[in-house]
């Protein structure tokens, strides 16, 4: 049956059809929907892990135990998972194993543009690169078969456009794969140096066999239309190239890209007068061709970064894009993302941004938007969980250099569980005096509301134990802990006033749910009057000072002609942050509700 699926949905379908029994992941754009779709299948055990390393290790354990297993994550997640991945690649599998990496050429929602094909090369991990949703499904099925045949984990490298584009997919039936027997095998599963030295030699043999297979893989194929121009492309870049190079050019479409099919590439390059390499991110195929001695054109012609979409290719080749209409672009306003009306981060950042003589070490989440106007309340963001440890390093340096600057670290609940806990252990152990704020909005917000260890549910929406952040940080040895409602600006100020002068570490937990969350019964019980009211401006009292606009709430509208602020009733959820900011008490709660 044909279905119109995104690449992520097709990966999930592929996992189902391949008989996968175990899937673990941490959410991250554009990979999140893979596990969300896998979770719909009763036949597959699915879980959100607190981070990608744990997800990878969970999948490794399940493979050892004899079932087909997988882990999926965004490209930077593989950095976190790289430690177990690199060694598991030595060990080989029992049940077939696959890691799916979702790379982000163009960085739509990522902090860097790393090309994870380099991980496949570095780890000697065989790799497939799907170009569309059908290939996502087909490659998943092939990857599990090949993983068991060649005794190695496979990598599937997606990019945003493959993850989030829909195309037609022929769906099949699930193939049940029996659970393999687990037997103790220290040579294979205990990565002692003595064992790894033996495995290291065997890997070379395995890669030779895989290189032979790559030559005959149906995912690599040539389409010869002429010998003047040849294009070698992997993944979705092949489709982009088809649009621009057209029917006259010949193509070598590569889907099995580690090891690359050397003979096939040689034959193709020898036939062609001129060869272009179209690939996103690094010159991975290009450098391989150059090593074979071919003079090919890749990054000398196309940009070394960003997506290789048809307009990018066309501009690189011909000097211009297709003709576009001319119009006054200066009229186009910017539409930057902003914290939602009622976002519980607003109150905290509105007040935190007013503090002087501090450094704010931030993290990855919706709250990274606090780095911009009107809050200007974040001075650094590196990677998941870095806020606390970067803040610790800065605080130590400031203190020792005699700089009087307190460091405040800020991260979300899911980010804290991800890798913030170890960072906080470091802060306690090495005696930092940072103020650490955990924004507990009861969900993983930015990636679209995934459950996490603090939210009370699993990915399959089964009730789960709740890790209590307050008890956890106390157990780590933090003696000064406060749980506050971030919409209460006086409480925010009081907590900061109390903790900033301390000579030991402290934790403030701001506890209020994400406004977009589907509230659980526990939420409704805990949070009184959750987003059930509206605030309103009395135009008689409003003096047009725009103090409330400084909170950055999208429900507030400044009417230029009247020089008054108005609240968009449809957007307001009655968080009262603007009300507390108004110097003339012009904002009140709507009555009669």
């Amino acid at each position, binding site marked *: 049956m*044909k279905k*119109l699926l995104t690449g992520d949905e097709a990966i999930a379908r592929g996992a189902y059809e391949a008989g996968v029994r175990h899937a673990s992941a941490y959410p991250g754009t554009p990979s999140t929907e893979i596990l969300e779709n896998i979770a719909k299948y009763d036949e597959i055990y699915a879980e959100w892990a607190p981070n990608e390393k744990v997800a990878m290790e969970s999948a490794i354990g399940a493979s050892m135990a004899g079932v087909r297993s997988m882990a999926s994550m965004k490209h930077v997640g593989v950095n976190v998972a790289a430690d177990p991945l690199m060694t598991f690649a030595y060990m080989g599998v029992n049940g077939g194993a696959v890691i799916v990496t979702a790379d982000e050429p163009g960085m*739509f*929602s990522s902090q860097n543009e790393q090309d994870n094909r380099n991980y496949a090369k570095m780890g000697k991990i065989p790799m497939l690169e799907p170009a*569309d949703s059908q290939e996502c499904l087909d490659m998943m099925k092939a990857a599990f078969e090949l993983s068991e045949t060649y005794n190695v984990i496979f990598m599937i490298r997606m990019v945003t*456009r493959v993850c*989030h*584009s*829909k*195309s*037609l997919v022929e769906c099949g039936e699930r193939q049940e794969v029996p659970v393999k027997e687990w037997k103790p095998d220290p040579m294979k599963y205990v990565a002692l140096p003595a064992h790894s030295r033996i495995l290291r030699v065997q890997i070379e043999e395995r890669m030779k066999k895989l290189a032979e297979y790559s030559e005959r893989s149906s995912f690599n194929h040539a389409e010869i239309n002429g010998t003047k121009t040849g294009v070698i492309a992997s993944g*979705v870049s092949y*489709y*982009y190239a*088809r*649009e621009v190079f057209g029917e006259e050019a010949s193509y070598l479409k590569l889907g099995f890209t580690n090891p690359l099919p050397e003979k096939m590439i040689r034959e193709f390059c020898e036939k062609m007068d001129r060869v272009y390499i179209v690939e996103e991110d690094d010159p991975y195929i290009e450098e391989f061709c150059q090593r074979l001695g071919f003079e090919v054109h890749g990054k000398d012609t196309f940009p070394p970064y960003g997506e290789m*979409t*048809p*307009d990018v290719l*066309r501009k690189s080749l011909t000097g211009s*894009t*297709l*003709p*576009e*209409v*001319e*119009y*006054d672009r200066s*009229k*186009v*306003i*910017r*539409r*930057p*993302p*902003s*914290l*939602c009306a009622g976002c519980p981060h607003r109150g905290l950042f509105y007040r935190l941004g007013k503090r002087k003589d501090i450094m704010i070490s931030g993290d990855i989440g*919706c709250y990274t*938007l606090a780095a911009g*106007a*009107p809050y200007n309340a974040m001075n650094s963001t590196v990677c998941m969980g870095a806020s606390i440890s970067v803040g610790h390093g800065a605080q130590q340096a400031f203190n020792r250099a005699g700089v009087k600057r307190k460091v405040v670290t800020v991260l979300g609940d899911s980010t804290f569980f991800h890798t913030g806990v170890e960072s906080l252990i470091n802060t306690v152990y090495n005696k930092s005096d940072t103020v650490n704020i955990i924004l507990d909005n009861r969900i993983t*917000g*930015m990636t*679209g509301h995934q459950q996490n260890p603090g939210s009370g549910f699993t990915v399959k929406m089964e009730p789960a134990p709740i890790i209590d952040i307050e008890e956890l940080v106390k157990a780590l040895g933090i003696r000064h802990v406060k749980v506050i409602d971030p919409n209460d600006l006086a409480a925010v100020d009081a907590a900061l006033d109390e903790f900033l002068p301390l000579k030991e570490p402290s934790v403030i937990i701001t506890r209020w749910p994400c406004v*977009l969350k589907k509230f659980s019964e526990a939420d409704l019980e805990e949070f009184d009057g959750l987003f059930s009211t509206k605030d309103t401006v009395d135009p008689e009292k409003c003096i047009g000072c*725009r103090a409330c*606009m400084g909170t*950055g709430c*999208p429900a*507030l*509208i*400044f009417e*230029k002609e009247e020089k008054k602020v108005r609240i968009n009733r449809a957007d307001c959820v009655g968080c009262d942050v603007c009300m507390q900011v108004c110097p003339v008490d012009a904002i009140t709660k709507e009555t009669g509700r």
Partner: protein
Amino acid sequence: MTKNILLTGVGGQGTILAAKMLTIGLMEEGYDVKMSEIHGMSQRGGDVTSQVRYSRERVWSPVIEKGTADIIVSFEKMEALRNLDYIRADGTVVVNSEEIPSMTVLTGEEEYAPDVIEELQKTAKKVVVIDASRKAEELGNVKAANVILLGALVQAMGLDDIDWEEIIRKTVKEKFVKLNLKAFAVGKEQMK
């Protein structure tokens, strides 16, 4: 010949649902279809774009090249202007006259130009302005604006052989079927 459709709007306007209905219809009609979506970092308030390509033959790229869209359907007028470089010289722009200010407008940092529609009309060959949000409100629910625009799109692209009624029945909640069928008809009427 591959046809290119660009749907754009602001988060929460139902752009993605309209694109979904469109692609289901095209798929059931036997076209090869590809759709690509880009939505901003935040859940709300950012701009949203869905690109749909279909053909009786094979569709290659999932993304539309600038200067090649046969039609732009914009759920908000500024978003039509933002994406106008996608339109081909003889393409059609269907635009909802709704104005949604961005954060930069709300804070007074930028001004929402009063002549967006005029700028569109000056540039594009064919511009159809539909007061879809108001018409949807008249039908009883502002959220049906997306299906009004879908109706206009179907009419403009000559896709009325497809059983859209059935697709609407399948995709929206039962209690909204009647509303959306009416909205779809209103949209088609605008293009006649």
